[in-house]
């Protein structure tokens, strides 16, 4: 019988000796080359972490391959990062270059440190979720392939953190990313009255709509959607499978930029929409990869050293960003939700 509530495996058992010994005693770090972190402890001990990109959706054989490498170069220890990269933990400096060579030989991607693009935080998409407006892994693959040169180098003005969420639930927590790729629906839910009648708690369904677009239809024992009020968030579909929201012809991707979560220099900030829609051109989403590349290259060309995307745009002004980026501005980009007022330009100062 299973033990209940025993909690996660104890992390202490997962730490290599060098970490056990220098736990909490790290003094500084360096980044000797892209993908390699060197952490030096008060004791003088040095730990090398080699960061390797992961598609995140992996087979157990992928994991076993990692184990083989870790056993050979890292005394059997490794970790994953908050962005789902793998980090090989090398305590013996002599093994660093051999490890890098081996990784290279086997085609692993080493990078993602310092002023680079790291892995894209992402989600399930068409692979496993029921509300996606786009795929997750496929878009990530297409974008990372395209931007690979910025993963294994550190030539950007600053770190670039990307996130992808395949629907507005935002499981990729893209809402505070330098560049956010968000799957969006664009048509109201299609009501399956039978499904609703069978299993849905109508008051909860009605309450779930952020804009009050759903009202009960007692005659029908179902609901009615006021299409004019619906902004296709899909929250009703999360509440009830009778509110189908996917729509192959109209689903796609919105791009938001300029968010961050670190407190360094400037307060954490939300990403802001700059492109309301790009089509789901599977399998390689060229419109999306191109749009993102353009924004990144503009940032590289114009930002000051050390400036995150949002810091750059806030310095030059969003109006200037739109003209530099040659992106069309439209009413769709103007907020009309609860906190909209704070985004309105209550000032007579702006650039043309």
């Amino acid at each position, binding site marked *: 019988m299973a033990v209940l509530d025993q909690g996660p495996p104890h992390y202490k058992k997962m730490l290599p000796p060098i970490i056990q010994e220098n736990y909490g005693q790290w003094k500084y770090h360096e980044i000797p080359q892209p993908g390699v972190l060197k952490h030096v402890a008060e004791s003088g001990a040095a730990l090398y972490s080699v960061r390797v990109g992961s598609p995140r959706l992996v087979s157990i054989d992928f994991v076993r391959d990692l184990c083989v490498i870790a056993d050979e170069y890292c005394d059997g220890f490794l970790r994953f990062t908050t962005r789902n990269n793998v980090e090989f933990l090398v305590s013996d400096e002599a093994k660093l270059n051999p490890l890098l060579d081996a990784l290279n030989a086997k085609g692993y991607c080493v990078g993602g440190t310092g002023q680079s693009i790291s892995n894209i935080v992402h989600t399930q998409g068409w692979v496993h979720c029921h509300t996606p407006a786009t795929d997750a892994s496929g878009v990530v693959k297409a974008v990372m392939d395209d931007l690979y040169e910025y993963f294994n180098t550190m030539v950007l003005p600053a770190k670039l953190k990307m996130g992808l969420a395949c629907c*507005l639930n935002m499981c990729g927590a893209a*809402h505070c990313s330098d560049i956010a790729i*968000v799957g*969006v629906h*664009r*048509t*109201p839910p*299609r009501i*399956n*009255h039978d*499904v609703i009648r069978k299993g849905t708690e109508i008051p909860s369904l009605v309450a779930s709509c*952020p*804009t009050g677009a759903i009202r009960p239809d007692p005659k029908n024992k179902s609901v009615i959607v006021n299409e004019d009020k619906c*902004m296709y*968030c899909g929250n009703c579909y999360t509440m009830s499978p*009778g509110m*189908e929201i996917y*729509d*192959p*012809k*109209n689903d796609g991707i*919105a791009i*938001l930029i*300029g968010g961050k979560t670190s407190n360094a220099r400037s307060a954490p900030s*939300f*990403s*802001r*929409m*700059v492109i*309301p*829609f790009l089509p789901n051109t599977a399998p390689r989403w060229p419109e999306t990869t191109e749009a993102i590349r353009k924004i990144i290259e503009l940032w590289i060309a114009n930002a000051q050293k050390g400036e995150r995307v949002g810091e750059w745009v*806030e310095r030059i*002004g*969003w*109006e200037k960003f*739109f*003209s530099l980026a040659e992106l069309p*501005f*439209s*009413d*769709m*980009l*103007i*907020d*009309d*939700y609860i*906190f*909209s*007022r*704070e*985004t*309105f*330009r*209550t*000032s*007579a*100062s*702006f*650039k*043309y």
Partner: protein
Amino acid sequence: MTEKKTPLLDELESGKWPSFVTEIKRAAVKSEAAGELLQVLERSYAERRGHWKHGGIVGVRGYGGGVIGRYVDEPQTYPHVAEFHTIRLLQPSGWFYNTKTLRTVCDIWEKHGSGLTNMHGSTGDIILLGCKTDQIQPIFDEFSEAGFDLGGSGSCLRTPNCCVGPGRCENACYDTLEACYNITNEFMDELHRPMWPYKSKIKFSGCANDCTSSIARSDCSVIGTWRDTLRIDQDAVKEYVAKKFDVQGMVCDKCPTGCLTFNADTQELSVVGEDCTRCMHCINMMPKAVRAGKEKGATILIGGKSTIVQSAFMSWVIVPFMKMETEDDFEPFKDLMRRIWEWWDEHGKSRERIGETIYRLGMTKFLKGIEVEPVPQMVFRPRANPYVFWDQDDLDRSGTALDGSKL
């Protein structure tokens, strides 16, 4: 005139700042109403509460506003202020007066009212404070004769006002005095005959210093600006430097866009024109050396108002740049205002200022309604939420069936 004591108010006659108590007393010499006002006010000071009521609507023939009805709460005790209404008169643009005109105001008001006035009310009117109901029409008739007209009250266009502008200010980017005069005249009907969901105010400031505080105090703020680059007189810059003025510290370092460079060697100041947001700071600091560009006009902002109900709002940009030329009689602006009011009249709830209506319905609906193209200058930054409405007619709906049927 009653000779009752006012010990609390008397304390407000000392001190350096001019005393309104002294003024009420001066008025009280000639007006029993003013004398009674002093008594009512002394009582308010003792009891720490007001004693005025609003009541039945009062006014003049042909207009729906311009007079605020006011009644004391104990008419028996204070019969002379039992009715004590306020007359609002349209002020001349920029509150400029010749003494003849001012004396006319005094004379008519002496004859019919309390002899108390606010020069001016917070919206801008000449406020004549305190008269009886039966005097309202005669007062209006005489003022009308003398070339005056009533100001706004109620759910109408309120009396517009403007800064001194070209009358005395080097910063004026359009003719605020003429704009205020011309546009007030254009909208006489809107001003005198309340017909909207609520009040609507316009204020005209000649530049982004916004000396009328239009952005906070009016539903529509017309703020002067320019399209080209500000102009720098390098000789004058050198004079400032000679006088030990800290150009770098007081001007360049405080420029919000960092677009000013001072070359300490050549003593020259230069600007990256396209980065300047025309905030006015450098011009304010060095009025002899820096001034606006040549291609002048105004930014139109919408939505300003005070606290009640949805919070205070500041106006936001809806037209980044509009020519405000006297020659064309301000036609584009007038057209815009008509479209704005029409939209608001149709969509606004009762006692909802236009800023609140736009907030409730969204900028998209508003911009469509008034036929203005969205531009990024309207916002500090784009939306953070992905809650975009799509015009369903623009989409290919052939693949979806509303009844839930499969593709």
